[in-house]
């Protein structure tokens, strides 16, 4: 069909609201989808039963009829003691798993009194410097009975070590521990920017954690391969899908290069996706993700176990879609996004609080977010059958389309030599920069409407009570840090750090050394500094 003909068929019929209807991946949405759109669909090969290859219809055969998704609300702020209180509150109110957000200085491996930590201590997450903070964080919480997700990347190995030693002190062996560390460094270079070391050295640490957990902490999910941040940085849904899976395959290859058997570690890889606004696009994205992962793991990496082929994921509703104007509107947005994640088959879900565009959420807002999930679960009927939208002409056509576009991206990445070379060539960053600039322009030209922001605005003052973190937190944390430094065996700390340095210069697995350092109350900052001496740091190019 020539360009002109195509344009004619897409030109709006009289009476349509827009010139064209495009979703957030810039895919043109038709007025009507018909059997024609899925005439080549083969149920066995393309969809299959849920819980069976290629898993399009769901990771498990009975999905939410068997067990609802985990309602896992992200939390963490102030000192470990304050967060411990919030955790106990959430567990009492029905939350079924814990999720830890860390303060920026922890994320970057700086102690609370480092100059870079100025103004950051306790903000954006809980402040952790030493093992003592971890012990306080989980005070009176039995680590053998809950599952914990730790949103930490560059220093993930250290936080995992602290978790293991904290459980050990509670009397639990590591094989009882359930949870996940995000530990996805590739997306840091692409989107979130909280890396410390260069890519190759970072990958070594990640494979160390995979290898260690495969042997000693077998229930632990070692990487939460993330698309959430890529999307938050401004990518389209297709880019989120493609870049996340590309990262996943890169980790699989790295672990296999170490000599690990794919079926030994792949079952413990999990994913973390965004749930953004375009309802159907998001559902198709999750279904396409499962199918792509299953096919490639089987055909390219020869994985045999069902668990290696099964893509499990956690979802968080899109922070970037929340507005600061008329924040109550965000409750409606989050409900819609949460429902998309459920209809897409997520294993666990975090729903954002409505005031989150303004600051860390208040207790009231957190409760509403949790209730949103509970209402979807108990009152909407969405959880009563598996993959209810399968067979829809629109859904299957769009799922196919997203898979095709993701495959096109995989080819481009392969041409560049793989994910790490593509990162160094700024491929992902350029794609995201362009997508986010385009999106911003569309909003400003009112080609895309955000209710209450660029349309239907009310000029009224916003009087949402906000949660404020005061500077006392910083003082308290620094005081505690100084106390630890005084009371620990500093000779031992020095010795263990030295041992770590030597190990880092070699190729042995670093987890045992890190655990030893952590046990002696070495701080994250000290461990990271030691590793920096061996690994160096990484500078990125600025891409606009």
């Amino acid at each position, binding site marked *: 069909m020539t360009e002109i003909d195509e344009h004619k068929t897409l030109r709006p019929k009289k009476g349509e609201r827009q010139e064209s209807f495009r979703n957030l991946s810039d895919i043109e949405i038709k007025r009507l989808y018909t059997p024609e759109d899925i005439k080549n669909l083969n149920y066995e090969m393309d969809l299959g039963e849920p819980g069976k290859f290629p898993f399009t219809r769901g990771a498990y055969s009975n999905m939410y009829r068997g067990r609802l998704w985990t309602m896992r609300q992200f939390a963490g702020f102030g000192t470990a003691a304050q967060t411990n209180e919030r955790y106990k509150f959430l567990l009492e109110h029905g939350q079924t798993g814990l999720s830890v957000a860390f303060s920026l*200085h922890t994320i970057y491996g700086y102690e609370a009194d480092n100059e870079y930590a*100025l*103004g*950051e201590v306790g903000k954006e997450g809980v402040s952790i410097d030493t093992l003592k903070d971890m012990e306080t964080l989980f005070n009176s919480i039995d680590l053998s009975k809950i599952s914990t997700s730790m949103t930490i990347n560059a220093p993930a190995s250290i936080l995992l070590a602290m978790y293991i030693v904290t459980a050990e002190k509670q009397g639990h062996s590591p094989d009882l521990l359930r949870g996940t560390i995000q530990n996805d460094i590739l997306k840091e270079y692409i989107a979130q*920017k909280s890396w410390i070391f260069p890519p190759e050295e970072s990958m070594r640490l990640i494979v160390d954690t995979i290898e260690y957990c495969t042997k000693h902490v077998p229930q632990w999910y070692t990487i939460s391969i993330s698309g959430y941040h890529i999307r*938050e940085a401004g990518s389209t849904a297709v880019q989120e899908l493609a870049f996340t899976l590309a990262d996943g395959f890169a980790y699989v290859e790295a672990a296999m290069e170490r000599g690990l058997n794919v079926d030994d570690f792949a079952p413990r890889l999990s994913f973390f996706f965004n749930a953004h606004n375009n309802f159907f696009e998001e559902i198709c994205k999750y279904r396409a993700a499962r199918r792509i992962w299953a096919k490639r793991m089987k055909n390219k990496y020869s994985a045999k176990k069902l668990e290696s082929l099964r893509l499990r994921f956690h979802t968080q509703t899109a922070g970037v879609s929340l*507005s*600061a104007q008329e924040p109550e509107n965000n409750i409606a947005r989050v409900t819609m996004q949460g429902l998309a994640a459920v209809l897409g088959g997520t294993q666990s879900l975090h729903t954002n609080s409505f005031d989150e565009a303004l600051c*860390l959420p208040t207790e009231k807002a957190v409760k509403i977010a949790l209730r949103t999930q509970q209402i979807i679960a108990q009152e909407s009927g969405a959880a009563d059958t598996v993959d209810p939208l399968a067979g829809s002409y629109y859904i299957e056509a769009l799922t196919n389309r997203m898979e095709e576009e993701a495959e096109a991206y995989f080819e481009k990445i392969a041409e560049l030599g793989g994910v790490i070379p593509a990162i160094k060539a700024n491929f992902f960053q350029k794609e995201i920069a362009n997508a986010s600039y385009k999106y911003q322009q569309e909003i400003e030209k009112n080609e895309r409407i955000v209710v209450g922001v660029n349309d239907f605005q009310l000029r009224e003052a916003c009087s949402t009570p906000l949660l404020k973190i005061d500077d006392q937190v910083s003082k308290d944390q620094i005081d505690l840090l100084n106390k630890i430094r005084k009371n620990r065996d500093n000779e031992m700390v020095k010795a263990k750090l030295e041992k770590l340095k030597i190990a880092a210069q070699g190729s042995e697995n670093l987890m045992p050394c890190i655990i030893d350092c952590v046990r002696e109350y070495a701080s994250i900052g000290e461990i990271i500094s030691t590793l920096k001496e061996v690994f160096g740091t990484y500078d990125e190019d*600025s891409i606009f």
Partner: protein
Amino acid sequence: MSENRKIKVLVCKPGLDGHDRGAKVIARALRDAGMEVIYTGIHQTPDDVVNTIIQEDPDAVMLSILSGAHNALCPIIMDKLKEQGIDDVLVAVGGIIPDEDKPILEEHGLKGFLGPGTELKEIVEFVKTNLKR
């Protein structure tokens, strides 16, 4: 001011907050409006910011902070600028600044709070109309 004169703006992110999408979009928009934009990226300490201002002598500075560290970082930066006798630079801050924090920052000399929802063209206008020299 001769016609050759371009408006020079510094866009940077003090502190550990790494979310640079907004700052980059603003840098690009200011460039598209004909300004010369120095972008120094993430993880700038207050000294980094101040020394860059001293050497580059910009007409305006846009600080982007989304982590909540503005209460600590902005006053330090403004105080250091004052120590240096620099008072003819427009300093604005973008990101998440709760209303109750604004008066203190204003007292320290910060002029604009260009938070979420501010249109790019508003930001460009703000810079053009609020220059101190």
